[in-house]
């Protein structure tokens, strides 16, 4: 960690925003805008895993797409290895794809149903013209084994594999170009628990082997705890707290993070944890509340939360632990 922190970050995200205009129900209706991602900044270092967590609609998946330029931002900047990823030439774009890849939740829809899996894992090498044909076949086979599948499965089609095996193929294809960054968007959420553990272990093993960095997007906080070095918590398009894994899970400060963590059921019937139960539902991101966006559900809300938007500030004397909350900043909670 300390070495990584000293060097320049692999991924730098500054003030990233993306708003979606909704279709107007009638022509003279006011334009409604979803602020899916609103002024989000973070860094990711070489070989590190940053967990990006939050509930549905908080903007975590949109952030993942913006980071790889799969969506154009309305504001802000994404830099990989110090270079902006916007307005690249076709050639530079290909270079970016070699460096950064993405894995989605639904492996079946990410795979070509009519191509054997060996060929699919090899395809990125073909596209980028890496090595000769024989070496590509060998590399694909090696990658197939690296993700825990047998070499003789190369000729099989996706429908012949289980969900967990399909996700292994997707991972193999994402890693074959030896990218430095992989955005993992809910990669294990569709899998059964016994298989989920296999894939999580695999992702960790491959990280050790290839030195790849993960932006791990998930709503499953216990999986995020297991895989992440650092974690950022999003609520309604903004990061409300970011910290190292242990600081975040053992010493959460933002009321939303505390509620989120305490809401996770622990598989131990003898344990009765103090629970911070939130009232109500998350408000719509169409017209997010003024001030702190969490104030409508926050049990600690005071007057100025409703008017002034808090910014991320270091807490606990730890520069890596930042919280966007007026009352935490004042040391009141």
């Amino acid at each position, binding site marked *: 960690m300390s070495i990584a922190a000293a060097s320049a970050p692999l991924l730098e995200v500054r003030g990233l925003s993306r708003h979606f205009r909704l279709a107007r129900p009638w022509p003279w209706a006011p334009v409604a805008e979803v602020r899916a991602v609103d002024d989000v900044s973070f860094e990711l270092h070489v070989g590190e895993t940053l967990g990006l967590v939050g*509930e549905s609609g908080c903007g975590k998946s949109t952030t993942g797409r913006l980071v790889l330029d799969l969506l154009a931002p309305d504001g802000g900047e994404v830099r990989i290895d110090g270079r902006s990823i916007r307005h690249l030439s076709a050639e530079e774009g290909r270079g970016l794809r070699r460096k950064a890849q993405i894995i989605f939740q639904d492996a079946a829809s990410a795979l070509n149903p009519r191509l054997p899996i060996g060929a699919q894992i090899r395809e990125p090498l073909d596209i980028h013209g890496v090595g000769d044909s024989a070496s590509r076949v060998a590399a694909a086979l090696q990658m197939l084994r690296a993700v825990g599948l047998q070499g003789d499965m190369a000729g099989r089609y996706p429908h012949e594999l*289980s969900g967990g095996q399909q996700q292994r193929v997707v991972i193999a294809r994402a890693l074959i170009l030896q990218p430095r960054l992989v955005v993992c968007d809910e990669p294990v959420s569709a899998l059964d628990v*016994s298989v989920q*553990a296999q894939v999580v272990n695999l992702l960790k093993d491959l990280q050790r082997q290839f030195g790849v960095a993960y932006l791990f997007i998930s709503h499953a906080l*216990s999986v995020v705890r297991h895989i992440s070095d650092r974690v950022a918590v999003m609520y309604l398009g903004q990061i409300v707290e970011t910290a190292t894994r242990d600081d975040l899970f053992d010493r959460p400060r933002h009321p939303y993070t505390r509620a989120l963590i305490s809401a996770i*059921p*622990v598989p131990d*019937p*003898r344990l009765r944890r103090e629970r911070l139960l939130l009232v109500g*539902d998350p408000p719509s991101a169409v017209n997010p509340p003024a001030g702190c966006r969490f104030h409508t559900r926050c049990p600690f809300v005071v007057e100025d939360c409703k008017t002034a938007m808090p910014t991320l500030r270091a807490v606990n004397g730890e520069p890596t632990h930042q919280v966007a909350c007026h009352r935490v900043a004042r040391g009141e909670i």
Partner: protein
Amino acid sequence: MSAPLLSIENLTVGFSTERGPVTAVRGVSLAVDAGETLCLVGESGCGKSVTCHAVLGLLPSNGRVTGGRILFEDRDLAAFSERELERLRGREVAMIFQDPLTALNPVHSIGKQLAEVLILHRGLSWDAAKAEVKRLLDRVRIPDAGRRLGEYPHQLSGGMNQRVAIAMAMACRPKLIIADEPTTALDVTIQAQILELLRELQAEEGLALMLVTHDLGVVAEMADRVAVMYLGRVAEEAAVNDLFSAPCHPYTRGLLRSIPRIDENVARLATIEGSVPSLHAVPAGCPFAPRCENACTACVEHVPEPLVRADGRRVACFAPVAA
């Protein structure tokens, strides 16, 4: 000891599919006592949802109960006519589904839908039903219930709709509620609210709850007793504390070890090798044998029968984990 409220005996459910017949539930026996919570837990294809649907005669048209009995207060539901089942559903046994929108009618206001249930099943007058609906919505903690009566399901959030579905399930004061993954589609902060609500209602009304889930955290919070299912059979059934502190079936142990926890760090997750086989290729012998580290020859050749042990636990395994 009095007879259980619901008792499922040796239930077998078959489906006809394009790829031939499958047996989704193979000789499942379970019992739910009045006021208790039984959790059914397992991975996809284990038959937990099918078991519940079979109880209420809600199997899809290609599914059929092919064996066994379902006794509710000593009446065999498997032998009930559709008409008799209709009278039972909602009135004595109610169901809550994963997606509340499938249970609610999109073109009627929630007030009207709830009132309809009360008029139909409890014979209330329109005015009495209206007052009762408001009371029910208050009970499931829907804020500002009076104003919400006229709203439609699409105007409410997922959590609110699930509360309405729970209100509807409670409307006729059933003795048993079957909840099939009631919080799986919800965010965790909303899940916590709904579980809390179910616990409260259960304590106040003395309801029995049969809760289907894949989340062992939810099991630990809600269950009195747990049945772990695998490929259509009950692998292990035990009191919740026993199951979590000393799992006997290798599958239960594997499941418990493979879940990451929110409150501690582990270097590496334990895994269960392989994956759940397809229902079209169920192994002979113990269904878990191909993935089991304790498996011996007997496991591959014979199906272990569930044995009741001294502590009241039932384990279907030839080579259980030493306690």
